């Protein structure tokens, strides 16, 4: 029996086992919406802005490891979605975005709500398709899901003209599709694996540097086992947090611009570095020339060859899926007769403990003003370290990363690569829908939260009981910090004047609002928000925090990794 393109889209999503489609209707996708109306295989979540649809789908993917799905209309629907797509792209998140397009005969004629979707999204997708023939639709959808989820994951856009959604054809959903041009390497090269193991066993000052690839590749158990077996210190990037438990003694915390003293010093001074699913970002190693001053040998595991030797030359490149590669390395290590150099390793740990004893994340909660770090620490305690934490972008994001100790992967949901303000609330929605019984908190700033605040309405409609933890410093704090340090304290346009009354705002949307001014009220407020009485409610907590608090340690842009500014030095 022949069915319409619209029905094919919907049936493909059902075949993929999609649970949620985050979307917003419009002319070009009305046929698809009509089919959505008639089905009950997945739930459609109506957001209030297309950007949020993509962010929510992205968060669903980050938290579950499955492909997230968003659906938007042509023209403005697409342009609104672009920020979400680019955000997912920079952090390698698997999502499929179905976009409506004007009918094929109208393409190129400046038709109503026409944009060149394939052209606009090309630089920020892993791949995209324009489906011109309904006969190609099912196969293209299959390809989109395969491409999004395999190799280095990423967003895939499928642009479907309106007439294609009305055309008829037989529906056949292939179990898989071969693509001669797309075959990601997943197994590590055996020769390279042997060299890597040899190098690890020879190391005197080893360091493991693990990134988002460990989380994306679900290789946390292998990483933990490897780290235990070797007894090496380990650090995580912002995207890798939770890939190795933060409360483990061997974990030195996050590294990079706002990384810990011990992690950055160990990274700079190690003699063998094992980089796992991390991409030597500029926020991580600082000035590459300064980084290269110390002699060290580098092993780099990444599924994407172009991540290897991009910013830093490495000695042993291993292209492959991190879970496969770590499993192989573990097997080789267990067979090896040699053991890690114990005496050297002890001396190295002594040095590291000395660095650690600086206690670089120390802060002082005294006086009448709430310290933002204190709120995050209390949140960690109140949620027993077991919540899903989303964040926006700014100082609060860094404090969340530093003070919420993530012991499990996929618990820390934030925008690292693009640094998109506004992700926090839609991210929390995506996570909470995926895990209705979990504790989900969005740590945000008073500026960031206003970039997608309209989603409070979506939360009301679907009863999404996330807890919003606003660290309200009345400043674009991260901007203010840079202006204080590098622009002679000229605070150009970084003060948030005319802030709304967030309590009333939350209430206007039908939620619970709280304003917390005093340090002694922080814990009680958090406990109340997470209490059974408010379990079903969205609680918006407006913490009035220290306006001038800065994030430390800090490596200035262009400086070397070991040239940190510490809190105590100011």
């Amino acid at each position, binding site marked *: 029996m022949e069915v319409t393109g619209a029905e094919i889209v919907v049936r493909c999503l059902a075949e993929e086992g999609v649970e949620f489609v985050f979307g917003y209707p419009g002319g070009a996708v009305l046929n698809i919406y009509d089919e959505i109306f008639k089905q009950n295989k997945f739930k459609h979540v109506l957001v209030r802005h297309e950007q949020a649809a993509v962010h929510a789908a992205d968060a669903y993917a980050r938290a579950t490891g499955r492909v997230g799905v968003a659906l938007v209309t042509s023209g403005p629907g697409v342009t609104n979605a672009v920020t979400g797509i680019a955000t997912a792209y920079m952090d390698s998140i698997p999502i499929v975005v179905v976009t409506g397009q004007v009918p094929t005969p109208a393409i190129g004629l400046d038709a109503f709500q026409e944009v060149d979707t394939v052209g606009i999204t090309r630089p920020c997708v892993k*791949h995209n398709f324009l489906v011109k023939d309904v006969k190609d639709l099912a196969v293209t959808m299959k390809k989109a899901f395969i491409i999004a989820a395999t190799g280095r994951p990423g967003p895939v856009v499928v642009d479907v003209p309106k007439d294609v959604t009305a055309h008829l054809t037989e529906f056949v959903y292939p179990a898989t599709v071969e693509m001669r041009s797309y075959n990601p390497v997943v197994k590590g090269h055996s020769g390279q694996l042997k060299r890597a193991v040899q190098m690890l066993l020879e190391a005197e000052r080893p360091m493991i540097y693990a990134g988002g690839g460990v989380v994306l590749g679900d290789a946390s158990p292998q990483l933990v086992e490897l780290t235990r077996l070797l007894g090496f210190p380990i650090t995580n990037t912002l995207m890798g947090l939770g890939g190795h438990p933060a409360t483990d003694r061997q974990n030195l915390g996050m590294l990079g611009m706002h990384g810990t003293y011990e992690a950055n010093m160990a990274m700079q001074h190690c003699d063998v570095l094992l980089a796992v699913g991390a991409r030597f970002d500029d926020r991580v190693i600082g000035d590459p020339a300064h980084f290269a001053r110390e002699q060290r040998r580098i092993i780099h595991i990444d599924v994407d060859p172009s991540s290897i030797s991009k910013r830093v030359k490495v000695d042993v490149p291993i292209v492959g899926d991190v879970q496969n590669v770590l499993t192989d390395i573990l097997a080789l290590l267990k067979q090896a007769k040699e053991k890690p150099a114990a005496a050297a390793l002890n001396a190295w740990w002594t040095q590291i403990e000395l660095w650690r004893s600086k206690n670089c994340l120390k802060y002082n909660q005294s006086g009448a003003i709430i310290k933002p770090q204190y709120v995050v620490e209390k949140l960690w305690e109140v949620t027993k370290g077991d919540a899903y934490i989303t964040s926006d972008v700014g100082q609060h994001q860094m404090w969340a990363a530093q003070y919420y100790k993530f012991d499990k992967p996929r618990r820390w949901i934030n925008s690292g690569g693009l640094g998109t303000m506004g992700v926090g609330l839609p991210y929390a929605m995506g996570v909470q829908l995926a895990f209705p019984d979990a504790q989900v908190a969005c740590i945000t700033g008073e500026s960031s939260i206003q970039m997608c605040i309209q989603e409070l309405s979506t939360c009301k409609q679907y009863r999404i009981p996330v807890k919003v933890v606003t660290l309200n410093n009345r400043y674009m704090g991260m901007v203010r910090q840079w202006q204080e340090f590098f622009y002679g304290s000229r605070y150009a346009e970084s003060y948030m004047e005319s802030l709304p009354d967030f309590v009333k705002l939350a209430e206007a949307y039908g939620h619970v609002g709280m304003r917390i001014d005093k340090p002694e009220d922080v814990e009680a407020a958090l406990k109340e928000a997470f209490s059974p009485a408010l379990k079903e409610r969205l609680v918006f907590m407006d913490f009035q925090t220290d306006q001038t608090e800065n994030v430390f340690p800090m490596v200035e842009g262009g400086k070397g990794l070991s040239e940190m500014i510490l809190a105590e030095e100011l």
Partner: protein
Amino acid sequence: MRHIISLLMENEAGALSRVAGLFSARGYNIESLTVAPTEDATLSRMTIVTVGSEDVIEQITKQLNKLVDVIKVMDLSDGRHIERELMLVKVKAVGLAREEMKRTADIFRGRIIDVTDATYTIELTGTGSKLDAFLEAIDPAFIIETVRTGASGIGRGERSLKI
């Protein structure tokens, strides 16, 4: 260093723009780019001439390989190869210059493929530098227009790029 990169990709709408977009987005140089379907019409073969340090060229080949439509990439400059470019030159051919133009074209093994009372159109193939040499050998005042295809390349001997 100058590199000549050959690649095979799916012959699909938009494939060329993915390559061109990659070069502009990442700030790589393109000296020339030629593309056409192969004997297998589902495949396009592209030749790109670019300039960059070894690190940049390594990134270029990796990034090209990463494009979902790209099947194979080969840096022809890594081994022995042949490079050819086609040029069409329209020149003034009047009076004494008419004979002179023909002679110069012959020396460069060019062919006159279109003739009017006042013009010749000359076809020349060779390496880029041979084409440059021809243009230097004739009086610039006589050149009406030139059009060049950019280089196409192929490996020597057994070396080949196929799926």
